[in-house]
């Protein structure tokens, strides 16, 4: 095992694996309304391929481990989520060279967002993952840099922002991806990529919350390890807006 950061990553990957399999049908159902009905299946296949490498990943430093997650997703996912998730993770992994702390987590988030927008040629309002990622990253940045919050609290705020971002995709027409072919027919449905992004962020928060609770992450987290009881995983998106 190559340290606590990698251990935390493996913990997060297991949770994300379970979550994406739980939500596989839901994500594919969302994608069947606005796209090509493969998002849930593609992500489930991708994350399974990642967790199959857990023994190798366990031996890696955090930056290499995260890069491996990215390259595996690129190789296995097969839809737009491969280059978007995998390519952005791979590219942003460089920010973690010195280990995982508040500063490098923020650098990772910003690098991820930048690569995502560049690869997808998408901006806020295009009804894509960017609509969840952008408010999350901006909120995380403010919470860390301006409000000086502990990373777990900052992440909790970021997840809330992503949740609002997902809701914001519902009334939009899509201007990128397969949904853009549908014109007005995509209106009224949440974006699958923004939704899966929220699920991943919720599991990252659950991981960070639990590990902070065990005072086993970093010193910065440990100071703040009081009574945080699963604010993340309960407040799940349940598709109620789609009636």
């Amino acid at each position, binding site marked *: 095992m190559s340290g606590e950061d990698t251990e935390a990553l493996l913990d997060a990957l297991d949770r994300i694996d379970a979550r994406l399999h739980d939500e596989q049908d839901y994500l594919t159902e969302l994608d069947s309304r606005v796209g090509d009905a493969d998002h849930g299946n*593609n992500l489930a296949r991708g994350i399974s391929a990642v967790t199959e490498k857990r023994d190798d990943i366990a031996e890696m430093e955090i930056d290499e481990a995260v890069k491996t997650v990215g390259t595996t997703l690129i190789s296995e996912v097969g839809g737009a989520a491969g280059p978007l998730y995998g390519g952005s993770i791979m590219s942003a992994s460089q920010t973690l060279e010195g280990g995982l702390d508040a500063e490098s987590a923020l650098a990772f988030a910003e690098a991820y967002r930048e690569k995502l927008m560049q690869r997808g040629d998408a901006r806020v309002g295009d009804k894509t993952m960017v609509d969840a990622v952008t408010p999350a990253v901006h909120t995380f940045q403010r919470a860390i840099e301006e409000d000086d919050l502990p990373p777990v609290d900052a992440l909790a705020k970021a997840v809330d922002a992503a949740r609002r971002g997902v809701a914001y995709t519902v009334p939009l027409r899509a201007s990128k991806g397969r949904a853009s072919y549908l014109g007005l027919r995509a209106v009224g449905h949440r974006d699958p990529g923004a939704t899966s992004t929220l699920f991943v962020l919720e599991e990252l928060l659950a991981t960070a919350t639990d590990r902070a609770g065990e005072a086993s992450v970093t010193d910065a987290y440990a100071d703040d390890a009081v009574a945080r009881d699963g604010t993340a995983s309960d407040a799940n998106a349940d598709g109620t807006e789609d009636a």
Partner: protein
Amino acid sequence: MVGLLVVSHSAKAAAGIVEIAAEMASDVPLVAAGGDPDGGIGTDADAIAAGLDDADDGEGVVVLVDLGSASMNAELAVEMSDADAVLADAPVLEGTVNAAVHAASSKATLDSTLDAAEEARGMSKL
């Protein structure tokens, strides 16, 4: 000779487009990279990167793509590969045929073949 790589969500579509283009330019390196890693509908960055190497005989490769993730995975593959490759902003079938016919001429370069592919954007059918 400049090579051409056809990237489609469907392995059959990619192979079919190569077949059509090869009728008019049998000497041009024409390679298909279609389908997802499991052989379903989708695109596969690793397969595209391998296709770039197959299509490259040293003078570069023009890449023709169909929908959405095809261009993203093709961009990734170009970054991963050592081949000198460019993506064409062109309709995949017409662009491939136009570029193949052009690439067969002795004066063709990577730039001029890319232009030939992109000229297909303005072609009228009726």
